[in-house]
């Protein structure tokens, strides 16, 4: 399936994602999983985390949410404060003692765990085996639902059009856009529309948006313009950093359009009650 999406070029400027080595997925669905909620979800999009738990539970999984979890360390890491990032990351390493998958409702945080923890602790060879094992069982939520749970979604919602925005690290490290597309394609009432320069960054980039507000602002202005012009009734994304950026800009522009986390969108579409149970 992902091959199909791989070759579908939404517009001329699309950057095709590289898949150096396609990921192998466990053939058996595990019984229990950890959820690593991420710091942005925790404070600003907690319902996305909760909807992720609900989606996983509906697949028959027992979800564990270690209460001592915090942040993957990415903000400090990308800002060059490597030692601070390492200390925070080390704390997270203690959380996932059992051999269960770690599911993350964010492509970039999952990418941090999977791709960058090894760099962060490269001078500590005694950790390497553990980090490798953690990387192997770390999954971005959409990827996990699609490839491990092999979820079959029954759309209960009214017909609508959505635009999918994918974070850059998610796109390039976790291929989340392919997974997001595949999940949306399961929803019979949902038409996914392309937007101009879809593969281009929304301008968030963590502390980049604070350090370079003019450039970041120009990028999010273009991104929101493209999203508004796409004809989508709403935006869906699997990364809350981008959502904070895009929604914050849309609200500033007093636009009606908003973005929602993919987990919340999927949960609401497949509940038959528009999410009225919350």
């Amino acid at each position, binding site marked *: 399936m992902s091959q199909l999406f*791989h070759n579908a070029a939404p517009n*001329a*400027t*699309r*950057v*095709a*994602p590289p898949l150096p080595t396609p990921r192998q997925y466990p053939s058996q669905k595990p019984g229990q999983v950890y*959820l690593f909620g991420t*710091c942005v*979800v925790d*404070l*600003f999009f*907690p319902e996305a*985390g*909760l909807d992720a*738990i609900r989606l996983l539970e509906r697949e028959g999984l*027992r979800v*564990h*949410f270690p*209460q001592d*979890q*915090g942040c993957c*360390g990415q*903000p*400090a890491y990308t*800002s*060059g*404060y490597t030692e*601070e990032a390492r200390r*925070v990351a080390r*704390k997270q390493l203690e959380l996932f003692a059992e051999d269960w998958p770690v599911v993350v409702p964010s492509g970039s945080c999952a990418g941090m765990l999977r791709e960058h923890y090894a760099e962060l602790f490269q001078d500590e060879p005694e950790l390497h085996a553990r980090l490798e094992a953690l990387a192997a069982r770390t999954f971005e939520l959409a990827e996990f639902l699609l490839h491990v749970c092999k979820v079959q979604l029954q759309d209960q919602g009214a017909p609508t059009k959505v635009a999918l925005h994918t974070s*850059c*690290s998610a796109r*390039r*490290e976790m291929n989340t856009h392919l997974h997001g597309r595949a999940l949306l394609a399961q929803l019979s009432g949902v038409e996914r529309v392309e937007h101009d320069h879809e*593969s*281009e*960054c929304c*301008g*968030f*980039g*963590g*502390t*980049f*948006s*604070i*350090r*370079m*507000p*003019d*450039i970041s*602002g120009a*990028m*999010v*202005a273009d991104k929101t313009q493209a999203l508004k012009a796409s004809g989508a009734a709403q935006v869906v994304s699997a990364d809350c950093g981008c959502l*904070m950026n895009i929604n*914050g*800009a849309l*609200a*500033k522009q007093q636009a009606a359009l908003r973005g929602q986390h993919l987990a919340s969108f999927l949960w609401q579409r497949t509940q038959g009650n528009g999410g009225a149970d919350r």
Partner: protein
Amino acid sequence: MNSHTLIPTVQLHGDFKQRARGALGDAQLRQNFRSAMDSLMAKRASAFSDADERERLRALGNQIRARALSKLPELLERLEQNLTRNGVHVHWAETVDEANAIVLEIARAHEARQVIKGKSMVSEEMEMNHFLAERGIECLESDMGEYIVQLDNEKPSHIIMPAIHKNAGQVASLFHDKLGVEYTKDVDQLIQIGRRTLRRKFFEADIGVSGVNFAVAETGTLLLVENEGNGRMSTTVPAVHIAVTGIEKVVENLRDTVPLLSLLTRSALGQPITTYVNMISGPRKADELDGPQEVHLVLLDNGRSQAFADSELRQTLNCIRCGACMNHCPVYTRIGGHAYGEVYPGPIGKIITPHLVGLDKVPDHPSASSLCGACGEVCPVKIPIPSILRRLREENVKAPNDPHQVMRGQGSKYSPRERLAWKAWRTLYTTPALYRLFSFFATRLGGLTPSKLGPWTEHHVAPIPAKRSLHELARQHLEGK
């Protein structure tokens, strides 16, 4: 030709952020770059229609460059031996001042008054035009894009397409104003005007200067690709040819150049091959009818050996100067090349310039990226540009007394205040009890979030914390299970 001055020295004012703000406010500039970059991205994509082939070739390109760098000193010595054997004079320059002095000495020995230059970014590093002009030697650019920016007293805004910031109308006005020709927006006519002017100059020039794409150690060959023929003219018509290049451009053997050339031309302009591929292996021989009587190569370090010394930063020197990283960069596309204020703009510029001029001269460069990764994804020799940018951020915030000296100007963004803020952040996220307390109040007092939050609220509304954190929601939800 009019008596326009040929001293292109635009001093760019303000710091990076000010220049970027200026560029962002220039709608015409934004439009010029967006459409040009879109077109270049499409061209590259169509030149690499087979993704598997592309990835194999990129991996090969990376290996070739890594191998060359792994034995750089040895290859440079072989290059010198073989070039010398071929009759080429090899000169070594540690700094741009030394490189300019070498060029000047050659020019004076030949009593040169006029120099014609093919395209060379290293000569831009040297500010050779300016240097020679101050010493009474006219240095004229012969690449059409370079000619245009020189005519307008500007600097290149792109390493492959120096005048990409201008559209046809702007070039038409420039030619009309500076050359006194009739105003025409017809691109073919504009090119003809430029060619007519330049044609004469090739024959008048005492010296031709060029860059080098690959210097082949095994054979002592200088490889130069171009599309306009000006490179061939510059390197064959004048009596003296001076090639200037960085020490990292050396490759081991001719076979190495085949995949690299393919990667270069396809990544840069989507071309399977350039119109001209020049392989220069020495001056005119006794039985030959054309070619220069003297060929010189100036090998410039200018900070490259600093990058070479660190295994991660060394990958910066893989670069084959295709420009694909800038073509795909959302930051470059919006601010253009001049805003960077340095010779090399865009992602590659951000990682090479700190070695050339010192990190303290370009303190904002490492931060001017969302780390989106588009550059690293398209780089034909797989330079991990985002990782290197992150590494430079690390070097940039190092304390002044850090014993690990990696690069000139490191620690230029060291801020005790920011360091303290990150320490607080770390304490918060490594002390669960503290985080529980913090998130309890943050979620309960979300209504107190100020509507103005520094730079963030210039383009966004302030983010208001949810009423309950996921920690609380998850605990409630999972407790009953």
